[in-house]
């Protein structure tokens, strides 16, 4: 008899999402993005292309930007995930969020959560990136509205605010 969703045994995982530890039982085939959106109801992480191209689903896994549509949720076991919902603290937007808002580094906003997290990883590793480093750091994120110029300005502004 072929295995179906009902017969695949679930596996226990422990994962800290935006600072809160979660103990969950999941199907081993579950993708990280589906864990976030469908299980934990954190719908700020968007699915764009679902083929590992566009980067809209970017989150930080143990501090590293990953495309959560191409990572199995079990790979987050024992780890920490940061999504767009975890950026603001006590009602105060994160400096990267503020910079994107102030520089109008978005139009429709669909790709923005992924850009915010990719920017955060970039600036944590390189507080003063030059233009080439910004382009390289955000090369895995696609925006179909802005033409990127305001996004680059936002990254620059965020870098200044975070230094």
């Amino acid at each position, binding site marked *: 008899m072929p*295995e179906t969703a009902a017969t695949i045994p679930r596996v226990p995982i422990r994962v800290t999402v935006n600072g809160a530890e979660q103990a969950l039982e999941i199907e*081993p085939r579950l*993708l990280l993005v589906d864990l976030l959106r469908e299980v934990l109801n954190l719908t700020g992480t968007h699915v764009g292309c*679902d*083929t*590992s*191209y*566009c*980067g809209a689903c*970017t989150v930080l*896994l143990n501090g*590293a*930007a*990953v*495309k959560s*549509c*191409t*990572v*199995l949720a*079990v*790979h987050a076991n024992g780890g920490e995930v940061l999504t767009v919902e975890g950026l603001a603290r006590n009602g105060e937007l994160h400096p990267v969020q503020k910079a994107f808002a102030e520089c109008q580094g978005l139009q429709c906003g669909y790709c923005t959560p992924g850009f915010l997290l*990719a920017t955060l*990883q*970039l600036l944590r590793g390189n507080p003063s990136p030059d233009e*080439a480093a910004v382009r*390289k*750091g955000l*090369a*895995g*994120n*696609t925006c179909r509205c802005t033409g990127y110029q305001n996004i680059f300005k936002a990254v620059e502004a965020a870098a200044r605010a975070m230094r």
Partner: protein
Amino acid sequence: MLAALGDEARPLAGGQSLVPLMKLRLAAPAHLVDLNFVPGLASIARENGTLRFGALARHADIEASSLVQQVPILHDCAAGIADVQVRNRGTIGGSLAEADPSGDWAPVLLALETSVHVTGPQGERTIPLADFITDAYTTQLARAELIREISVQVPPKSSGGAYLAFKRCAPVYATASAAVQLTLDASGTCAQARVFLGCVGLTAVRAADAEAALAGKDIGTKTIEAAAEAARAAAEPHSDMRGSAEYKKDLVAALVRRAVEVAARRARGERVELSHVYA
């Protein structure tokens, strides 16, 4: 475990190729054996004259490794694979085991002296990389065998290399790529040359005539042009959505020209930053 699960099981490394293939239903293994929790498989170390990469060493860790800075062609490769998100997950062992004709590591590692250390139910064996990849998506790996480690001989001081790809954008495979490693003798003449091309054949293509055009010569404009033309002739591209066969041959010539220039400067001790060309 792989042996017990049989033909329907696939090992899973970084998942940056296998997971998308499964989502497209182009791969539908009944079982995945996850290597990510196997301890000690992701190390990067140097022992005497050999760099040793655990199969699960991720592209981003290789990019950041100070050991790799000494072999610039390896850094060119690791830093240029896809985008930061993919480099954070994808692994060198997974890339070689997949043997995608558009993969970045094969042409680069073939331009160096590279061995693949394989482990399985029958024990360990070591395979030169040139023999390991036998065809598109095909390697010498037997059922239930895994890559454990990839070892690369550090080239001498008088050697320099460069890897350059042309890509429509970061997340996609390159349209064409060129890996060049040159070793100069005491007088600055090219003693040995290796030239491999990516994306223009079923496996990485060795441009032997381009190597012959460089060996024994001073690396000047005429030599570089001869090597570029020989590489153009060696490429066997197909026309596809990335470009026509003729266009790709032109691209190969241009990439080899630039890669030879940078490799020669690096062989002379110059520090040269190099990044891929994006459309």
